[in-house]
C-alpha cells in the first residue's frame, strides 16, 4: 500500500532522515517508536508529503509522491492524518469540521455529508457534541473529533502522530479505544506513539527509529521481548 525507498529528508544542512526503507501493507497497524528527535514525525509527514521529500521514493497506491508532478490533493484524500495537537478548525462546529472536506473535495452533498458525520460521531462516542465548537471540548473529545474528521474522507490509510501525547492521562484511554476499534475493523494505520502498551497490543509490526534510520522492525513480541539491536534494547530499557 505504501512503499518507501531510500527516503532522505534534510532541513537545511540538518539531515533528519538518512535513508528509510519500509513497506506498509493493507490492513496492518504499524507503530513507530523511538527517541525524541529521531525523525518519527518527519517520516510520517513525508508519507503524505506535508514535508517536502529531499530524495528517495514514497509510493502511495502506485503514485510516487516524491515526484513534483504527483497529484498531492488526490493522494491526501486517501491518506488521513491525526495530529498531536488535534488541529481542529476553531471557527467551525464539530459537524462543520467533519463535513467540510467531504463537501469541498469529494463534492458530497450537504445532507449526505452530515448524515455520515453524525454516524462517525456516534462511532467515536460524541453524538451529543455535533453543534459544539472545539474549544468547548476536552482534549480527548477533540482528538476523537479529529479522528472522525479524518475518517469522513474514507481514507485507505490513517497516519497518527503521537495522538495521545497532548492529552491528560485520564483521556488517553478514550482515544486509544477508538484507535483499537479502527484497527479491529481493518483500517491500515501508521501510528507514531510513546504508548508502548498500545504498540504491543494493537501493532502488527513495530518500527524502531533512531538517528534518521529505521534501526529495527518486527512484530511487537519480538521487538519488545527480544530486541536485536543494541539501540533498541537501550531505548526500551528506558521507556518500559
Amino acid at each position: 500500500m505504501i512503499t518507501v525507498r531510500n527516503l532522505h529528508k534534510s532541513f537545511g544542512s540538518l539531515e533528519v532522515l538518512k535513508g528509510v526503507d519500509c513497506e506498509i501493507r493493507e490492513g496492518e497497524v504499524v507503530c513507530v517508536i523511538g527517541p525524541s528527535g529521531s525523525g518519527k514525525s518527519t517520516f510520517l509527514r513525508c508519507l503524505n508529503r506535508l514535508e517536502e521529500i529531499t530524495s528517495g521514493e514514497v509510493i502511495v497506491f502506485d503514485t510516487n509522491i516524491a515526484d513534483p508532478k504527483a497529484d498531492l490533493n488526490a493522494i491526501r484524500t486517501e491518506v488521513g492524518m491525526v495530529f498531536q495537537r488535534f488541529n481542529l478548525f476553531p471557527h467551525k462546529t464539530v459537524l462543520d469540521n467533519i463535513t467540510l472536506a467531504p463537501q469541498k473535495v469529494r463534492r458530497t452533498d450537504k445532507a449526505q455529508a452530515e448524515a455520515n458525520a453524525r454516524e462517525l460521531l456516534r462511532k467515536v462516542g460524541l453524538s451529543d457534541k455535533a453543534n459544539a465548537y472545539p474549544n468547548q471540548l476536552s482534549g480527548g473529545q477533540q482528538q476523537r473529533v479529529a479522528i472522525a474528521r479524518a475518517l469522513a474522507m474514507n481514507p485507505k490509510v490513517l497516519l497518527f502522530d503521537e495522538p495521545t501525547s497532548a492529552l491528560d492521562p485520564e483521556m488517553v484511554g478514550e482515544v486509544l479505544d477508538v484507535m483499537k476499534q479502527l484497527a479491529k475493523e481493518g483500517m491500515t494505520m501508521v501510528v507514531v506513539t510513546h504508548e508502548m502498551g498500545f504498540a504491543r497490543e494493537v501493532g502488527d509490526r513495530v518500527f524502531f527509529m533512531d538517528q534518521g534510520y529505521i534501526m529495527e522492525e518486527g512484530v511487537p513480541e519480538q521487538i519488545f521481548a527480544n530486541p536485536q539491536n543494541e539501540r533498541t534494547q537501550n531505548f526500551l530499557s528506558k521507556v518500559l
Partner: protein
Amino acid sequence: MFADIRWDALQEYFPLFLKGILMTAEITVISVAIGVVLGLFAGMGRISHNPIVRLIPNIYVGFFRGTPLFVQILLIHFAVLPAIFGKSPAAMVSGIVALSLNAGAYIAEIFRAGIQSIDRGQMEAARSLGLSYSQSMFHIILPQAVRRMLPPLGNEAIMLLKDSSLLAAISLPEVTYYAKLMAGKTYLAWEPYLTIALMYLVLTLLLARLVKFLERKYGTV
C-alpha cells in the same frame, strides 16, 4: 473668542460641508473596499514561496509605505494618470486610485500578519484532508485571520478617513476642500476648520464604535 463666532457665515456654508463630508465618507468607503481586495492579493503574494510571485507585491508595498501619501496623490493625479489616459483625470478618480493603492499597501501587511498569526497546524490539517492551498486559505485560514485583523483594519480605515483630507490639494470636493473654500472667501479660520475637525471626529468615533461592535460579534475564535 467664541463670542465672535460668525454663525451666519457657518450657516451659509454648512450645506456644502455636509455635501463634502458625504464625499469624504464615500471616498473612504470605496478606497477601503478596493484596498482590502488589493491588500488580500498583495498580502498573499508576499507570503508566497515563489520569489517571483513575491517581487511585485514587495515593490508595491515598499513604495506605498515608504513614500508620503501626499506625494503619491500628486504623482498619480498630475503625472501617472495623465500619462496613461492622455488627459487630466477627474479628481475623484485620482483620489480613489491614490487612496486605494495606499490603503492596499498597509492592508497587505495586515493580511500578511493575520495569515501568519494562524497556527501552521491549521493549514496542515486542511491540506491533509485533500483541500487545495486556495481552498484551505479561503475556508480555514482567512476566516480566522480576518477576525484577528479587525482592529488593525479599523485603524487603517480611520487613518484613511483622516488622510482623505489631503485630496483637497487636487480640488476634490470633499469636506476639507469646502472648508478651505470658505476660509478663502470669508477670511475666517476658526469657523470652517473647527467645524470640519468636529465632523471628522464624529465620523472617526462612529467608525471606532463600529469596529468594536464587529469585534465583539465576530472577534472570538
